């Protein structure tokens, strides 16, 4: 098969994918490979000694939540002793923003790509400020974690079942025409999610708990992000593993390295040091406080959302910096490195042109244009939370490595 044909096949599968929130389950019961003392994290594989502050903090919090440790010190000792088994969530049909920590007792969303029989898992989005994914683990965080997993999740589960599933892809398709790009800006999509859920929550729940749930989802702001991420990964995974294919199927960061996966090179990660983010800081914070780029949320860019859809979300520049003209220009540039246009996600401002889809490593290396990522900036010290937002890019080194590996594989086969 030619590369062109392989890429076309990959993109066809991506386009046909679906993403429906069908269930909430305990990770231990559904996430492949999940078990005791198992911790899945964002980004490519990495060891404890290289993990950034926010990720360590999250692991400490998760360990205490699991009951593996009673104190932070015990949790650290556990991690350092090698007792904990770490792996990339991506290897287990799972995904998470920022540190993206998933452990067995956590409740996870189940988002289904029915067309290809792929289920993908993500934890419930905790909100903003002092949250687990930014490495916070004080009592307020632990209490919230317990409430979310023991109270909120079962209620949501009943509502989702009552709804017969919530079509996340459909919400995204609408939100992209309402000014969201789905990575940093989720105002419309989060509201649409609430609309989709509300009457079902009311039908299955008692007034007080329903009110609390609705308020939680509203305050969280980006509650839908974890659902969109799981849905996007499920859609992209359908296009993985096609020989001769140069399309990027995952972009993910662990705070230490940024990695990409390419369909034609299977499970391999091609990594480079995680870059710093250029952006706008919240009052009191600056570049010295910042953690390098982190999280699996760049799966949105991978599927043609995030910065690739920025032309439809000009308001996001108030958050990440830049001008509306820059937002437009960014999307236009991204067409240079992709092989197709999204059939589902259309940009009214570009005469309903579909967003760029299918990042081709050949085009990235040829032009030097790397996918831009719209992202939040995490504090490098655990527990502080988000300190700003901005733009960064996937290092060109990732694509150069991938290209060399792809060519080498081809040479062997031919």
């Amino acid at each position, binding site marked *: 098969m*030619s*590369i*062109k044909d392989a890429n076309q096949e990959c993109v066809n599968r991506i386009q046909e994918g679906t993403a429906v929130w069908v269930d909430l389950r305990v990770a231990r019961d559904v996430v492949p490979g999940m078990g005791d003392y198992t911790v899945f994290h964002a980004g490519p594989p990495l060891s404890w000694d290289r993990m950034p502050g926010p990720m360590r903090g999250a692991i400490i919090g998760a360990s205490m939540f699991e009951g593996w440790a009673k104190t932070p010190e015990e949790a650290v000792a556990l991690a350092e002793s090698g007792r904990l088994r770490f792996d990339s969530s991506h290897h287990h049909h799972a995904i998470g923003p920022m540190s993206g920590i998933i452990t067995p007792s956590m409740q996870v969303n189940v988002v289904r790509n029915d067309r290809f029989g792929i289920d993908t898992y993500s934890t419930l989005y905790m909100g903003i400020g002092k949250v687990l994914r930014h490495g916070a683990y004080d009592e307020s965080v632990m209490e919230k974690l317990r409430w979310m997993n023991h109270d909120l999740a079962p209620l949501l589960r009943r509502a989702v079942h009552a709804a017969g599933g919530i079509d996340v892809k459909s919400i995204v398709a609408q939100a992209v025409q309402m000014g969201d790009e789905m990575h940093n800006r989720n105002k419309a999509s989060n509201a649409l999610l609430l609309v989709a859920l509300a009457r079902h929550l009311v039908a299955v729940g008692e007034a007080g708990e329903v009110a609390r749930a609705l308020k939680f989802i509203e305050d969280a702001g980006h509650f839908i992000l974890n659902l969109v991420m799981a849905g996007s990964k499920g859609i992209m995974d359908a296009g993985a593993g096609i020989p001769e294919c*140069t399309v990027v199927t995952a972009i993910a960061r662990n705070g230490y390295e940024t990695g990409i996966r390419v369909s034609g090179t299977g499970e391999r990660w091609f990594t480079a040091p995680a870059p710093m983010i250029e952006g706008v800081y919240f009052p009191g914070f600056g570049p010295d406080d910042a953690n390098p780029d982190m999280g699996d949320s760049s799966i949105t860019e991978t599927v043609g959302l995030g910065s690739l859809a920025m032309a439809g979300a000009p308001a996001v520049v108030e958050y990440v910096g830049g001008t509306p003209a820059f937002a437009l220009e960014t999307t236009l540039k991204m067409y240079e490195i992709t092989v197709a246009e999204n059939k589902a996600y259309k940009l009214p401002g570009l005469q309903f042109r579909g967003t760029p889809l299918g990042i081709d490593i*050949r085009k990235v*290396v*040829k*032009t*030097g244009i790397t996918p831009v990522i719209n992202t939040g900036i995490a504090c490098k010290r655990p527990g502080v939370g988000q300190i700003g937002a901005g733009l960064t890019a996937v290092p*060109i080194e990732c694509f*150069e490595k991938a*290209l*060399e590996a*792809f*060519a080498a594989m*081809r040479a062997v086969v031919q």
Partner: protein
Amino acid sequence: METKVLPEALRVINVGLESFADDLRADGVPVVQMDWRPPAGGNARLAALLAELDDEA
């Protein structure tokens, strides 16, 4: 050998000096000016690799 070779209506992609595109445009010829730069940022080895992997048709 096919003889329908010579195009009657030119539609041009200009790769390089912009003055050529300007002249064509002034003549009413549809032309797109490409923003050309050395491929792979000037890395000859990667550029050669890319040339091999371009299997458009």
